[in-house]
């Protein structure tokens, strides 16, 4: 019934969809298996993409030729560039999306991608020969062969849902859990553990009083995520979000349900993320705070459903609604679906190689929550990397690995496989040591050419990058060569309260002033300046401006990154025998043997490993 595929992707969430798209676009014959064709690329949590550090990841996925940025642009109902008042490394695009449109757009794009087949079924077993995965077996009894298999199980593996004292199996509410794979993998020596996450109630927007909340509108400029020019809604069409707060009354009501909370009764074993706590966790751990912010997000264009971000809870439904009704604006609220907590299986990611292939079973790849991460963006970026690397593996090509100074994706995967994670892993900009290099505005300059070279990013994308690079160099050159007389610029400088110049100066020097931007310079009325501004696109101008204004910081980080690079180039042989080094500390020995670091650089980032252990290791490795 089924041909042999190059790659089977198990699960069609953010990771699975990106994996299928990448592998297929590289030329692999892909089968995407999902338990429900109606929920492809479902946003299980809030209807938003991007945000701080996460927005950068989507830009990187897009620069590599993934779909998440395009889908987000096509389905957005609001766009904001967060942190615009901070340095450019912090600028982070975020969109609110129409949940159903997002899912439908993903499905449409996958259906239009040649080489992607779909099948609705549950994979309950892997076909394994001599420690190589060779296919999958489904609940309906089909054996489907493939060269590589990518598992993106999300919260579905032995998913267990809690609402108050009720608990039942499920991958999302009203959807069945998946079983079988964890047990099989454990029998092959895999370690597995439980994580927990949660979601807030969804309510009827018609029952809310928005006059009691603060409105948060979208930006005037619809920048978006994709480096391709994707048609987006106009700024005036955007939907608003709203902000409201809990209060002590809300907290008192919530506390009445604590005795029936699965969190405190010990029914939940999994570890939840510290940065995404349930509302009961917030009032319990931060008892001195008398209010918590709630972010009221519309679910789409054609629905009244509202997502109450910040109110994640697994308390009994009646406590949820009673408490919610004491929140300003929610006095008469009607609930569509209660919040719940969900526990699921994950496999500590130290069991993976940089390619996201498992160390124990060849040709088996993991991506997304199965690796202990949380978040659509974190999942999607692992998906595209697993898709690429499964294709590379199937074709006997070298793994495609991004380094910590090249992409947030590189930071994420390196953190996962070197350090593992004990709680759902979310990206923060502070996790990246070179965040001034890893900006959302230059993701294309960093990654598109690399992706083109392995055959994923299109020629169109590459040409866009070359065009941008050339333009930026020209702008920088023009600004460097352009000398401005005091009388030309001083009237403008006075209007912005910037000190005047007394002798002529190059324009790029003036641009270094914090209060001066290229955009504002347009108001100076200097014709040569306007010539430059009118000759280039706003993205090209912005890129040149960032490179000039932040040169000192960019260079500083580049220097540090270059130092680190040397360590990354020292490969540790796969079969290196750590036991023969008696001088290693016991902890380092144990960690090295378990994680089997790929490079000296990776070895140095393993927690508990000292610099002297690394020196000793280097001595043994020779050059």
């Amino acid at each position, binding site marked *: 019934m089924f041909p042999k595929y190059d790659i089977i992707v198990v699960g069609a969430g953010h990771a699975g969809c990106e994996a299928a798209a990448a592998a297929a676009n590289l030329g692999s014959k892909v089968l995407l298996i999902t338990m429900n064709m109606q929920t492809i690329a479902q946003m299980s949590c*809030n209807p938003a993409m991007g*945000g*701080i*550090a996460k927005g950068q990841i989507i830009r990187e996925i897009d620069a590599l030729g993934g779909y998440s940025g395009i889908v987000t642009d096509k389905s957005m109902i609001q766009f904001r560039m*967060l*942190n615009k*008042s*901070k*340095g450019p*490394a*912090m600028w982070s695009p975020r969109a609110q999306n129409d949940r159903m449109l997002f899912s439908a757009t993903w499905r449409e794009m996958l259906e239009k991608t040649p080489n992607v087949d779909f099948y609705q079924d549950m994979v309950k077993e892997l076909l394994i020969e001599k420690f190589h995965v060779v296919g999958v077996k489904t609940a309906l009894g089909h054996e489907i062969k493939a060269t590589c298999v990518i598992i993106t199980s999300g919260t579905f593996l032995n998913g267990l849902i809690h609402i108050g004292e009720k608990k039942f199996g499920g991958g999302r509410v009203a959807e069945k859990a998946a079983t079988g794979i964890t047990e099989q993998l454990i029998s092959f020596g895999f370690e597995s553990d439980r994580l927990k996450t949660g979601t807030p109630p969804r309510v009827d927007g018609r029952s809310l009083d928005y006059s009691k909340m603060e409105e948060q509108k979208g930006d005037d400029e619809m920048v978006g995520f994709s480096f391709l020019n994707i048609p987006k809604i106009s700024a005036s069409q955007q939907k608003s979000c709203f902000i409201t*707060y809990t209060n002590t009354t809300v907290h008192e009501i919530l506390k009445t349900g604590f005795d029936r909370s699965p969190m405190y009764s010990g029914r939940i074993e999994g570890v939840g993320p*510290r*940065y*995404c*706590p349930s509302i009961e966790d*917030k009032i319990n*751990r*931060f008892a001195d*705070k008398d*209010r*918590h*912010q709630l*972010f009221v997000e519309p679910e789409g264009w054609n629905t009244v459903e509202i997502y109450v*971000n*910040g109110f*994640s809870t697994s308390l009994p439904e009646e406590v949820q609604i009673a408490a919610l009704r004491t929140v300003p604006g929610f006095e008469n609220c009607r609930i569509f679906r209660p919040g719940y907590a969900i526990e699921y299986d994950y496999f500590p990611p130290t069991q993976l190689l940089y390619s996201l292939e498992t160390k124990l079973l060849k040709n088996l790849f993991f991506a997304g929550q199965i690796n202990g991460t949380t978040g659509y963006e974190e999942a999607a970026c692992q998906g595209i990397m697993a898709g690429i690397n499964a294709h590379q593996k199937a074709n006997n090509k070298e793994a495609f690995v991004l380094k910590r100074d090249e992409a947030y994706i590189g930071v994420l995967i390196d953190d996962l496989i070197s350090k593992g994670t004990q709680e759902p892993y979310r990206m*923060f*900009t*502070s996790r990246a*040591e070179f*965040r*001034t290099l890893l900006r959302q505005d230059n993701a294309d300059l960093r990654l598109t050419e690399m992706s083109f070279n392995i055959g994923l990013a299109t020629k169109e994308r590459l040409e866009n990058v070359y065009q941008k690079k050339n333009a930026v160099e020209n702008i920088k050159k023009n600004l460097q060569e352009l000398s401005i007389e005091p009388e030309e610029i001083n009237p403008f400088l006075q209007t912005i309260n910037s000190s005047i110049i007394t002798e002529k100066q190059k324009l790029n020097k003036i641009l270094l002033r*914090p209060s001066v931007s290229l955009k504002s310079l347009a108001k100076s009325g200097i014709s040569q300046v306007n010539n430059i501004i009118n000759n280039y696109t706003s993205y090209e101008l912005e890129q040149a401006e960032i490179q000039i204004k932040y040169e000192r*910081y960019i260079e500083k*980080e580049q220097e*540090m990154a270059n*130092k*680190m690079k*040397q*360590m990354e180039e020292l490969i540790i042989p796969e079969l290196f025998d750590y036991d023969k*080094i*008696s*001088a290693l500390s016991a902890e380092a020995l144990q960690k090295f043997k378990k994680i089997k670091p790929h490079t*000296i*650089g990776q070895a*140095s*980032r393993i*927690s508990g490993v*000292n*610099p*002297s252990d*690394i*020196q*000793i290791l*280097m*001595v*043994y490795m*020779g*050059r």
Partner: protein
Amino acid sequence: MINRLSEWNDTIVALATPAGVGAIGVIRVSGNLAIDIVDNMFPSKKLQQQPSHTLHVGLLKYENEILDEVVIALFKNPTSYTGEDVVEISCHGSAFIQQKIIQAITANGARLAKPGEFTQRAFLNGKLDLAQAEAVADVIASNTEASKNAAIKNMRGGFSSSLQMLREELIKFSALIELELDFSQEDVAFADRNNLINLIKHLQVNTNILIESFALGNVIKNGVQVAIIGKPNAGKSTLLNSLLNDERAIVSDIAGTTRDTVEEILNIDGVLFRLIDTAGIRHHTTDVIEQIGVKRSLQKMQQADVVIYLFDVNEIDANELIVLENELKDNLVPYILVGNKIDNNAEKKVVVEKFASFKEIIFISAKHQQGVNLLKDKIKNLAVNGDVHTESIIVTNARHFEALQKLSDTLSDILKGINDNISGDLIALDIRQALYYLGLITGEVTNNDQLDYIFSKFCIGK
């Protein structure tokens, strides 16, 4: 965070012979800048143009100051111990001179080598076999352990807790900055820049105290600096010689014979002193060479731990001495007033009466070795009984010193950033550097430390 391992294409320097022992010391420099760095300090010849395995004699200079007359052995890669360009400088055995040379080399772009690093490089460049490598690994492990233990032992309670405090406050500071960067969309209060400025200033003060205490750390290692000052011909060189019982300094009756400072080591009951004889302080000197000498004397006086002010009892009256003593008081360095040239007991009575208004003057005859032992006791008591601050927080490790200085520079960058009102992510970049330098002393600081702090103190997450 930033990796803290050796990069092996940079240039390293260290003393290759045991510190403070032997008539000569050998300083080894290895790396691709080794020859260039020493070339800069060695005006007699262009070392870069000399063949490998050759010796060169000449003066080693740094910023026009002569450091020592040295013999330089040149080994070009790959035929050297490490396989890199290696320069070995044989200099005099004085710990002081060696330290100055090493400091000059690091100022020119090398960094201090880590334990076993030369050997490690030798191995990496294929100069050792595996059996030798095993021995090296053990050496690194034991050296690291030993230096760690030594460092802990050397650290007075005050030092380690100061650093601990610096580290914690800096992590807290960086966490506050990271908080407003990564969680700007949440309901969190922004870090008050004024508080941050105060915190950084506080850190600067603490860092600078530690940096200053490094000088004191050297006191323990290299001796208490005692400067002998006084007018020309007050008998300073004679005193020096009688303290040392030899003829080290040129002694003559012509005022201004000692043209340069002279240093000698004196051991009084086990306490090491570094005696510095200086050119006399004489106003209106026109002799150019001597002017330089006088300038150096004044500098030495300020750097000294103890100042001996020597005067000729026959050439000075009480009023003049009051003025001089006030100058010494302004200098804030502990001092001893010593009246010289008391040649017989009858004379002494008159003299004691003449200076009766002074709290304490030691009267000696340097020429006749009288009163010199009393002076020695006085010097020792000053050093041992705490007027010299040997008991304060002390940094002894040169690497710690280097790290603290870089930390101090970086703290200035942070402060400047806050004052210029630059964005938090850019301030954070400098903070990361500061944490890196602090980590060289206290151990690693990871971004998890910051996140742990954030999650424990702030309610984050939707």
